[in-house]
């Protein structure tokens, strides 16, 4: 047998040449196939968890919005009746308006306060004091909102509260904090902002730390000082953080429940009743789960619309470095 390969056979050999490569590909494909399965296996708990505990309840809630159900009797299909009732219910309308007013005021205060304190702490404080303030401002967030509200209820009691006692030292008469519409709204906002601004504060601290020092130096060389530096450098470069902080703050504020529920039970009148409080009252106190779901669906749509609007607007106001 000749050891030389006839020329005409070369293409065949050439055709055979990739064979080891094909085997390698097959190996790789098999490896990647198993990697894919491995990825699915790792993802499975999350997917199942999300499906079972997030998406199923959301889907069930949407379906329930079209039924009348009091837990005890069988559900009855009522079409859009729940939505019609909810829209006509003056308490629901007021609670949504309250929620929106609350979001506007509380989020503005929360972000304004957080930003001002973050700038102050980041620029003016020594490192050890910065650490102290970071912890101190974040601390209220880890407390239970219900416990804080119970505590605040004592502080703001008209007759025996510490706040009015301090005011009396200055000759100011007792303020009916929790029994007048204005007073109770102010206390709910105050308590909410006090408890939540720490999170936005931390976000802003992180955002401020990521702004290059050179940018400030360049601005200084261009003659920018004091406030102008913050207006023309800090705010634009902090805009991605501001977007994130505002989206999170607005979503959280739209779902406010604990503070008004414990402090005022939504009163006096409906002055501090919020959308989530109405959902709770409809479902667990009046046993109208369908109506509660309908309110929940409407609230979800509002949250989605506001968040989408924020992201759309962000294209005009947010600057990425």
């Amino acid at each position: 047998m000749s050891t030389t390969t006839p020329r005409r056979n070369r293409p065949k050999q050439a055709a055979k040449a990739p064979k080891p490569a094909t085997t390698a590909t097959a190996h790789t494909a098999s490896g990647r196939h198993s990697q894919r399965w491995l990825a699915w296996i790792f993802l499975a708990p999350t997917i199942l968890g999300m499906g079972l505990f997030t998406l199923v309840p959301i889907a069930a809630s949407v379906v329930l919005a079209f039924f009348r159900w009091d837990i005890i009797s069988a559900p009855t299909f009522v079409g859009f009746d729940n939505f019609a009732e909810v829209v006509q219910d003056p308490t629901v309308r007021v609670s949504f308006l309250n929620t929106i007013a609350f979001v506007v005021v509380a989020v503005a205060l929360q972000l304004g306060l957080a930003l001002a304190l973050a700038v102050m702490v980041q620029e003016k404080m020594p490192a050890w004091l910065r650490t102290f303030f970071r912890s101190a401002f974040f601390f209220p967030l880890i407390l239970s909102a219900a416990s804080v509200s119970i505590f605040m209820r004592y502080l703001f009691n008209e007759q025996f509260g510490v706040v009015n006692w301090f005011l009396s030292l200055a000759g100011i008469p007792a303020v009916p904090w929790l029994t007048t519409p204005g007073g109770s709204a102010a206390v709910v906002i105050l308590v909410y902002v006090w408890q939540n601004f720490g999170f936005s504060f931390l976000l802003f601290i992180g955002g401020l730390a990521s702004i290059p020092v050179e940018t400030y130096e360049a601005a200084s060389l261009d003659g920018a000082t004091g406030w102008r530096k913050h207006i023309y450098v800090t705010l634009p470069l902090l805009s991605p953080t501001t977007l994130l902080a505002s989206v999170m703050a607005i979503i959280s504020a739209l779902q406010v429940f604990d503070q008004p529920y414990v402090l005022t039970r939504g009163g006096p009148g409906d002055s501090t009743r919020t959308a989530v409080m109405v959902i709770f009252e409809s479902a667990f106190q009046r046993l109208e789960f369908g109506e509660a779901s309908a309110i929940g669906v409407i609230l979800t749509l509002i949250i989605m619309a506001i968040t989408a609007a924020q992201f759309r607007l962000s294209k005009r106001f947010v600057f990425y470095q």
Partner: protein
Amino acid sequence: MTGAETGRLREITRRTALGALGAGIVGATVASWPRLSGTDIPGRGDNSLSIAIMGTAADAAARQRAIDAFTRLHPDIRVKVQAIQAVDWKDFFTKILTMVAAGTPPDVVYVATEGAQLFADKLAHPLDEYLRRDAADMAEFFDDVHPSLVEAFMYKGSLFQLPMDWNAANMYYNTTAFAQAGLERPADDWTHVDFRNSLGAMRKVRPSDFTPYYWTNRLFGGVVPWLYANDTSFLKETRSTGGDWLWDSFYANDPSRNLRSGGYQWLEPNADDPRVFETFDYLRGLVKDGLGVRPEEGGGSSLVGLFASNRIGTTPAGGYWVQGLHEAGMKENDYDVAFFPKWRSQRHQFGTAGYAIMKTAKDKDAAWEWIKFSASREAMELIFPNPGTTPARRSMVNEALYAGKGPAHWKVFYDTLDKYPTTGPIPAPPQQAAVETALMKNVSLAVSGDERQLKQALESMQRDLELALRRQS
């Protein structure tokens, strides 16, 4: 598809991920059909008689003694008592309803007046058949219990609970504050005018850091006792027919037999009644003149402490306060209790509580045995060892119960029923939660502003009550 494409590690696209999530939802739904419930959790679905009460671990000792006594009597019935912590009865009922929704309803629930009709209407099983069967055994219980308490648990002619404990809204007063203002103990028939004058006298002596009248914005002890005293209410009160079998069996010779009915009904709002306006206007006057507080919604948790610190002159409360005041350091002569002031009537408000058998109870006969046992003198003495409430049995409201704790006129508690047999329960139709919200949310506004604001608040209350009573009716 080429080999190269097949071999590439395919990324998990959004479509794939969404498909997987969809499959997850379908899988989860299929997997949970028929519906999984809390009883599927190992250890929960046993055959014990499950009893839910409002309480904390602190009451465990007295509870366990009662369970042990019951087990000695009925060794074949296993009892499991769940003490559910709650801020108030509304909160407690919410938790029970959550248990129902979760598929783990208790067999027996301790229900107060606030929820009696909600349970009777939707969740509870009537006791009629058991009472007829064991009439001879139960006669002694009814002999010892005022019929007003029993009537509070009648619903459409059937009895759903036996009263175990109760409390009326009487008027507590601080004896030192009264003495400082030169006031004597109020007469039994003191009027709302006398009451206001007493508050004025106390305010004169202690112009600051003191509240002559402290009241809360709740269904019990808030505005309702004043409405009752003025012979009105925020809901129109009517009575159902029926129930004669019970009254004739157990209260045939009671002087108030003819007042009894098949149960209370609150079907229409009544906030537009001129007497309701008059009552609110009276309370508004107390607030305006600094004699009474502007009530906070759901307030009251700190009231015992405030009263015990001698900073409150008077407040409406029942016998349940005695133990709390004692534990807060008040001596038996530091305070006393009087009847609620008279207006057009001197009808008082009370609330009572007792066990209800759930429709879903696995073994209703066993549940009835628990109720029958709990109504016995032996069980009540175990369950109510101190004046943390007023026992439903008249014979247990005695000197021994209040010895060393006060008040001096403890007889006022049961006399409220005996002397004023028209004394009525907390108005609580099946839509109680919505009704309570409708009342409470308008009270603060009604008593905090001018006459125009009061009118607006009552109009709003009338509208809210109409809506509340329409729901689920």
